[in-house]
């Protein structure tokens, strides 16, 4: 079989030679035959004539030879393509609308698929990624990791790693760096090779504090060290201590978590130095992420069983820390299964939307194409009646549809590349080295191609089949089936209604989420973000002791108060809705903790004035003062939910509670209003504040409310921090909103996606409606002319021509709105307070759809009412 294809392709490659050879051969044959006949005694002229006759019609003959050589199929394809090109060039408007619709539909799908590909399908950038598994935790204690690593029999290697925030000294002052603390075998187990220098190995990671080495990521090497080829062996100061740079990781390597792109890897044994207190021998701290490479021939099930038998021993030996310990394996990349579910659900939703948009594009094209083939029924009838096979015509129409699909697919792919490039280079929406780098690969290319092909078939087959099933006799006599078709409902009418419904649904969803998002920005979250600047830093990164750290924090606060325009200033360890939240179990004084478990409450360490600076209202009692220090009794401020749920009284001032069952009692001195602390869609939850004078915390967020413009105030704050300690890395300096990014991230992403798809749907609906309206008008020009001639008014003409499209639009809109209403609950879980039962939303949807209809039908309607009866009647 392949040999035949090769032969055919060879013939195609030298097609002109092939044809010439055939001619030569036939000519020779005729000459030889003639000579032969002369030898038998025939007159030369008669012999030549006879020879030619015997061979038969030369062209038929050649055609048969071409078919024998397998060239016929390609010849027909070429004919079809040439014909398609010619017809399409004659209707550039149709081509533009078709290609644009498809480019949008296929482009959207390619973008989404590319993201799915990166997030869920593609393996990690390591050697045989399919053998790497994440040990579900998400965290494990480091001693447990050690035991797992040393006792298992199913993994060829097991690594432990942990996200670390670091401060690095550069010429322009200290900068924050994101990195991994990783066990020595990290690179060897993953099977990665350095591009410069070397990596650290197991023997470099034996004694705590003894391996001040760093491996740079490719991006960090490029951006911070200008790609210095002689970087290996140089020294950098990280957290004020010298580290030797061993080497650089390859360009695409980012470790084992898809969304975290670290700048640097440091051996795990440096943990006590980096983080200030060691948990390397502590079975209480479940801080290490663990992944491993399965031995050859071992199944994940066997490995899980193996790990769980170790777990049994561990929980037997250390019942207090490891009670009920159980392990599972997960595919790596999304912190085990922690993020996978959310990501999958989100992407499935988006993929569905993209599919719907593509379906709308298909519907559009099918109806455009149906209208077109309807117009060409005369031509097709002629071709059928002079003997063209139905199969042949079907193939020609399909070629046309597929050509359009491929053009649209190519345009869509280009569009997708552009969008993906934009997404890949966008700055991360939150204060985290997250990257959404989804470079399209071969799989994406294949996907786009398949999508185009399937699309072409979907929108091409139905009209083509209908076209060839028409009766040529009737069509040629002029009694066209199409002539009366506007009295009946055709499938393309339903397509249009469905498309309008989809468009309306997406527009509704889009408005609902936009409205919800603006609600979310306005709702009281227990803080007033406007005019509030922050500077976040960690005393640990510059090696301050507790006392020095506390003194520095006070000094910074005093310096900020000296700035002009400052109306409030304070500091705490964190702010609500930031990534960094701490929580502890809390018991009221009455609760001995034996009967029931305590309740988890989020807590903050706050300076006096913190609540005022944040804009959090105190509803009872008093704020902290600097006298609430170590010598004074322990005090706390709680929110209303804390008072109600844990202290069981709204009037809780004076009540006492403790952290854990054995902690010291703290007295409530004030109650504040509830806010949002972890996400905008959360239920009210208990929160308490501690005094910084009683609880030192090295993580610091300095708050400054100023009457000056935000940017100006931020510049002042930056200057103050630089003069106080130029070596302290300050991150997230500026408006507090940059710390809140994470809280708004899901809603923002959902809104952006819905808006994009809403826009797409609107564009598709406009082209769809326009296509059908224009087609209807152009088919009925003659009829309109008659109507006008016998005295119809413009509005009567409009009603007769556009009435049906109007009905379709109305039905579609109602259906779409109903779908929008039905999907409220899904939306509300992502976007805060999203509800379509909002007159604003309903009004906006109605207005948009009216605008869409108007924009799409305006030109055809103008054309309908401006039909000149005389010209239109002469037209045929």
């Amino acid at each position, binding site marked *: 079989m392949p040999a035949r294809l090769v032969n055919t392709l060879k013939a195609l490659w030298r097609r002109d030679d092939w044809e010439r050879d055939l001619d*030569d051969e036939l000519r020779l044959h005729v000459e030889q035959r003639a000579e032969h006949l002369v030898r038998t005694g025939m007159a030369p002229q008669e012999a030549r004539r006879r020879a030619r006759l015997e*061979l038969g019609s030369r062209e038929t003959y050649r055609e048969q030879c071409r078919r*024998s050589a397998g060239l016929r199929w390609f010849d027909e394809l070429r004919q079809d393509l040439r014909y398609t090109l010619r017809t399409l060039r004659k209707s550039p408007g149709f081509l533009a609308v078709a290609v644009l619709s498809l480019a949008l539909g296929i482009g959207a799908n390619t973008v989404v698929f590319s993201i799915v590909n990166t997030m869920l399908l593609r393996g990690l950038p390591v050697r045989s990624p399919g053998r790497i598994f994440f040990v579900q935790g998400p965290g494990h204690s480091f001693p447990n990791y050690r035991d797992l690593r040393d006792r298992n029999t199913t993994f060829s290697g097991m690594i432990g790693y942990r996200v670390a925030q670091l401060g690095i000294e550069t010429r322009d002052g200290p900068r924050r760096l994101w990195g991994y603390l990783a066990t020595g075998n990290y690179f060897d187990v993953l099977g990665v090779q350095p591009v410069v220098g070397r990596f650290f190995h197991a023997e470099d990671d034996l004694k705590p504090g003894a391996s001040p080495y760093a491996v740079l990521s490719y991006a960090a090497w490029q951006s911070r060290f200008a790609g210095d080829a002689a970087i290996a062996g140089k020294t950098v100061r990280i957290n004020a201590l010298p580290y030797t740079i061993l080497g650089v990781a390859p360009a695409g390597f980012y470790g084992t978590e898809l969304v975290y792109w670290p700048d640097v890897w440091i051996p795990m044994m440096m943990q006590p130095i980096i983080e200030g207190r060691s948990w390397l021998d502590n079975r209480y701290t479940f801080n290490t992420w663990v992944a491993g490479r399965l031995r050859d021939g071992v199944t994940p099930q066997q490995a899980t069983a193996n790990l769980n038998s170790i777990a049994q021993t561990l929980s037997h030996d250390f019942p207090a820390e490891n009670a009920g310990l159980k392990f599972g394996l997960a595919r790596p990349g999304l912190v085990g299964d922690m993020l996978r579910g959310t990501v999958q659900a989100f992407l499935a939703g988006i993929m569905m939307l993209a599919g719907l948009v593509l379906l709308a594009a298909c519907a559009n094209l099918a109806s455009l194409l149906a209208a077109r083939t309807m117009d060409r029924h005369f031509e097709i009838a002629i071709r059928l009646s002079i003997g063209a096979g139905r199969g042949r015509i079907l193939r020609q129409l399909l070629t046309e549809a597929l050509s359009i699909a491929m053009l649209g697919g190519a345009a869509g792919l280009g569009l997708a590349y552009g969008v993906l490039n934009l997404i890949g280079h966008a700055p991360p929406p939150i204060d985290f080295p997250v990257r959404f780098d989804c470079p399209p690969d071969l799989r994406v290319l294949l996907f786009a191609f398949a999508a185009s092909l399937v699309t072409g078939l979907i929108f091409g087959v139905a009209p083509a089949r209908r076209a060839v099933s028409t009766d040529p006799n009737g069509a040629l006599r002029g009694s066209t089936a199409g002539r009366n078709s506007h009295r009946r409902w055709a499938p393309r009418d339903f397509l249009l209604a469905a498309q309008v419904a989809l468009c309306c649904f997406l527009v509704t969803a889009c408005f609902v989420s936009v409205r919800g998002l603006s609600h979310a920005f306005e709702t009281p979250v227990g803080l007033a973000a406007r005019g509030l600047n922050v500077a976040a830093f960690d005393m640990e990164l510059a090696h301050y002791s507790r006392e020095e750290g506390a003194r520095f924090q006070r000094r910074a606060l005093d310096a900020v108060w000296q700035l002009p325009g400052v109306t409030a200033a304070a500091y705490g360890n964190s702010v609500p809705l930031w990534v960094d939240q701490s929580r502890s179990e809390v018991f009221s004084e009455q609760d001995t903790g034996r009967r029931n478990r305590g309740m988890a409450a989020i807590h903050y360490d706050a300076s006096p004035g913190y609540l005022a600076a944040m804009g959090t209202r105190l509803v009872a009692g008093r704020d902290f003062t600097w006298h609430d220090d170590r010598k004074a009794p322990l005090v706390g401020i709680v929110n209303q939910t804390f008072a109600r749920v844990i202290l069981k009284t709204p009037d809780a001032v004076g009540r006492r509670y403790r952290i854990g069952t054995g902690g010291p009692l703290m007295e409530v001195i004030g109650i504040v209003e509830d806010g949002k602390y972890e996400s905008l869609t959360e239920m009210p939850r208990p929160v308490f504040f501690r005094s910084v004078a009683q609880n030192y915390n090295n993580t610091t967020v300095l708050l400054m409310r100023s009457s000056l413009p935000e940017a100006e105030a931020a510049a002042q704050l930056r200057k103050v921090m630089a003069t106080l300690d130029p070596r302290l890395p300050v991150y997230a300096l500026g408006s507090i909103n940059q710390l809140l990014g994470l809280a708004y991230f899901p809603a923002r992403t959902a809104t952006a996606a819905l808006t994009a798809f809403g826009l797409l749907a609107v564009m598709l609906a406009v082209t769809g409606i326009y296509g059908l309206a224009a087609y209807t008008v152009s088919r009925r020009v003659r009829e309109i002319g008659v109507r006008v001639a016998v005295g119809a008014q413009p509005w009567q003409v409009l009603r007769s021509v556009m009435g049906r499209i109007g009905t379709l639009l109305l039905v579609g809109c109602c259906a779409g709105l109903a779908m929008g209403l039905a999907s409220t609950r899904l939306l509300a879980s992502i976007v805060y307070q999203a509800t379509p039962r909002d007159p604003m939303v309903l009004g906006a949807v109605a207005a948009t759809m009216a605008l869409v209809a108007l924009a799409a039908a305006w030109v055809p309607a103008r054309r309908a009412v401006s039909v000149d009866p005389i010209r239109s009647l002469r037209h045929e």
Partner: protein
Amino acid sequence: MSETAAILPGTLDLLILKSASLGPLHGYGVLLRIEQISGGALQIEQGALYPALYRLEHQGLIAGEWGTSDNNRRAKFYQLTTAGRKRLREQTAGWERLVTAMTAALSARREEV
């Protein structure tokens, strides 16, 4: 003409393969060779010859090569390929089986039944 026999459908390919197996031939030569080896009993219709040649060439059973004919004209000579030789053997064997069977069937007499 009454001496010639119409060839059975499907046997043209076999005849072409056979004649090409006896030495390289151009198109008209194939025609003559078939007449010759069948003792003039089989005549090929000229209209069917070249499509059959191209089909066999396409299937890789014969290979055409350009050379010069007896009186110095450019001509395409067909030659059997290895695949063609194998096919010829198979088809010849098949044909012989058919002939034996047909002969046996046609020469059957009443008493043998």
